[in-house]
């Protein structure tokens, strides 16, 4: 009987007339597709379409195509479903995947349109006039007390610790372990240069990156990997990771093969052991437990802002309100398109709700309770462009987090095989022969270029809207219109249809 019923997704073709037999493809492929027997051969069944070989082939001799193999069409049994069954029938277990939800669910961002000024109010040219993106993350008082004395004004209210960002874009948490140290290095260098922050993810922070402490949010997740008092103070804020958009309700699993010496010492676990983060925090079984951890972390850090990261699930508004009342300073909403290094496909693709909707209801809930100033909202999980940034801010986000977009900037092709540890681009891997491929300075430069480009675009949008500060777009749903959304979704988003 045949061992494998799953046919190749892609076909790799080497043009032997062009091929100079330089073997770069063999060296570059992290998945072992290529071999050399008198000439270059390719095992298409291993190809994930990460394009590393294509980009590095000096002769453009390699082409990768989708396997045109015909299947009898069936609108219910699409090919991916059939393949999943063949895989599970052969090897019992969950189907693993990487990056964010890839199913064609309705993308709300793509059904929102942004306003602009004409005649009755002037648009503003961001190349000629100041256009302000500065953003503060953290708790703010509801009002200020200002006394007048001898013609001077005296401020009697102290605004607590906030994180000052030059731009409303931060780098989302991606753990050292799931991604390489060079990836962390690139993110840290870029965050510093851009005047923003990176988030460590749940794997601790390599000591080499402590000098970037003014641009780092350290994460404390259910596994407590790498959490110690020095680490907690190695950033501007601490984030309690309750959930992740790609895998709400479940923990993480970093296989032992990824736990080498450096990851081991950073995470404070033995080399070669699997790093399993429990599904819940075992000291947080209710909201009052969360409050205790929030305040324990504040005590440990001299009252730096504490962020709580949750996946956007059905009841997200009430949960967010509880988090705000539990003392959090930042709520990090990770939408169901958020990325991951590894998740069961059944969870990634079917659990949670879209960021856009969660963001709208959380912002509104906090407003209707009059506690919106208590917390900042970071929206992440599905931010793909400056347009998404603008729309997320208009829906109510103080800032957005980007993870997948940052990795794509550094070469990631979204092959979704992060969990294999074979990343040919040196990002989601710990193999020394692969991690060396990502030069942190090169990566940082590309991140800086990307975020600066989005900042320019965001400024252009603000100028077209006739405002010169990002806070005038924040929560300003009046400047959005929906095209092709149903009435109840528009009601939930608090956005009118185009034309009204």
């Amino acid at each position, binding site marked *: 009987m045949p061992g494998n019923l799953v046919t190749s997704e892609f076909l790799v073709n080497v043009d032997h007339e062009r091929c100079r037999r330089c073997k770069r493809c063999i060296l570059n492929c992290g998945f072992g597709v290529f071999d050399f027997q008198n000439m270059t051969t390719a095992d298409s069944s291993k190809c994930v379409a990460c394009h590393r070989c294509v980009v590095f082939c000096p002769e453009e001799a390699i082409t990768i195509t989708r396997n045109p193999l015909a299947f009898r069409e069936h609108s219910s049994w699409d090919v991916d479903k059939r393949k999943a069954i063949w895989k599970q029938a052969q090897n019992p277990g969950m189907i693993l995947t990487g990056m964010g939800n890839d199913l064609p669910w309705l993308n709300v961002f793509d059904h929102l349109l942004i306003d602009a*000024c004409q*005649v*009755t*109010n*002037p648009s*503003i040219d961001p190349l000629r*006039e*100041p256009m*302000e993106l*500065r953003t*503060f993350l953290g708790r*703010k*008082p*509801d*009002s*200020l*007390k*200002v006394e*007048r004395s001898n013609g001077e*004004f*005296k*401020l009697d*209210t102290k*605004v607590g610790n*906030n994180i000052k960002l030059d731009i409303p874009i931060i780098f989302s948490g991606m753990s050292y372990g799931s991604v390489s140290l060079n990836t962390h290095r690139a993110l840290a260098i870029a965050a510093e240069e851009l005047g923003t922050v990176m988030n460590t993810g749940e794997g601790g922070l390599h000591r080499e990156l402590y000098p970037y402490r003014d641009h780092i949010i350290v994460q404390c997740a259910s596994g407590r990997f790498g959490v110690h008092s020095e680490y907690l103070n190695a950033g501007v804020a601490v984030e309690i990771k309750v959930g992740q958009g790609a895998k709400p309700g479940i923990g993480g699993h970093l296989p032992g093969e990824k736990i080498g010496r450096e990851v081991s010492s950073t995470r404070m676990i033995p080399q070669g052991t699997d790093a399993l983060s429990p599904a819940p925090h075992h000291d947080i079984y209710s909201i009052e437990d969360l409050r205790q951890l929030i305040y324990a972390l504040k005590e440990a850090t001299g009252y730096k802002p504490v962020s709580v990261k949750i996946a956007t699930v059905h009841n997200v508004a009430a949960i967010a309100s509880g988090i705000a009342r539990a003392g959090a300073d930042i709520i990090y909403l990770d939408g169901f398109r958020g990325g991951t290094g590894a998740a069961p496909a059944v969870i990634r693709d079917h659990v949670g709700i879209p960021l856009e909707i969660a963001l709208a209801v959380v912002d509104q809930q906090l*407003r*209707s309770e*009059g506690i*919106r*100033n208590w917390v900042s909202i970071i929206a992440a999980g599905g931010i793909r462009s400056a347009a998404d940034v603008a729309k997320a801010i208009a829906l109510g986000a103080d800032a957005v987090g980007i993870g997948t977009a940052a990795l794509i900037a550094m070469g990631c092709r979204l092959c979704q095989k992060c969990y294999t540890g074979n990343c040919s681009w040196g990002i989601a891997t710990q193999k020394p022969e692969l991690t060396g491929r990502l030069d942190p300075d090169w990566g940082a430069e590309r991140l800086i270029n990307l975020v600066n480009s989005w900042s320019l675009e965001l400024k252009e949008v603000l100028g077209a*809207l*006739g*405002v*010169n*500060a990002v*806070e*005038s*777009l*924040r*929560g*300003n*749903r*009046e*400047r959005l219109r929906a095209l092709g959304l149903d009435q109840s979704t528009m009601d939930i988003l608090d956005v*009118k249809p185009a034309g*009204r």
Partner: protein
Amino acid sequence: MSKLAFGDQYRTWKVDTEKVPAACGLSGVISEDGNRMSGDIIIESMRVIHDRGNGLGGGFAGYGIYPGDADKYAMHIMFEDAAGKAACEAMLEDELEVASSEEIPTAPSDAIVNPPLLWRYFVLPRGEKVKASGLADDDFMVRLVMRINTTVPGTFVFSSGKNMGVFKAVGFAEDVGEFYRLAEYDAWTWIGHGRFPTNTPGWWGGAHPFNILDWAVVHNGEISSYGINKRYLEMFGYECALLTDTEVMAYLFDLLIRKHELPLEVACKVIAAPFWKDIDVDKDAAEKELYESIRMVYSSALVNGPFAVIVGYSGGMFGLNDRIKLRPLVAATKDDRLYVSSEESAIRQICPKPEKIWAPNAGQPVIGQLKGDV
């Protein structure tokens, strides 16, 4: 000019209207010594800038006009019909001691058509009702005004302050002033407005000034940040029923100055916030912290987009431009008077030889303060 009857205007506004952009002409004058001036002065000033309005709204506010009832809230209310009036009066009787009421005197003219019923009531909140509400008198009145304006059909409270009154209508400003016989009122502060709305029929209630308690705001501009300013105010119980920029401005001043007790100049720095580039280079550390705190805490109250406003309140009058001065505003002084207007001509019409006349800088308020008790 709108030919719709008041009730139709009202329904059109309430049902079909989204946020209404408008451009306008403004003028205001205050005697800081508290010398009262007849309403003629503001009508004459507004007449010169007739072309800045289009006949779809004009209005005025005068301060010090009801010296005999200065301790009571003067509610000016427009009704579509007797039924609305009866429903509203029942609500007033329930919540308030109504000391006196009368029809607001008008001089009917061809220039002002389809007027609603216009009445004024001098009232005080009933003690037991205020006590039960747990609110201060002013907040009690704010809540009542919001309730009437959002729940009683065809009824609109357009003035609710003490010893002041708003007079407004669909028409050109000077015609509105004559319709309300403003020459017969004496005030130490007058502000006036001619409206040029760009996409709706005019509506009596939608003319300026907008008022809540003793705040009266006339406004030229379109607030590009309207959506967030409105949602910010809703957190504090303000309902922006009229969907106009100017209403937002009035409530913001009420919130910042009356409820948060910010000094007027500081409230202006919230609404027309200084730029970070200027805050960053401020050498005075305390001032820097003040402005940084303002921008952090009140980011949703920053009013962005082109505006010039003149605001009347019990303590005086001030003019303010947006942070990059996208709408005209001119100020002048002579003797005890401060003049603020969209155009120099409107000032020179009533003060041909001012001692000083200037264009205030972006975001810098021009404040005329009433001296002592008047």
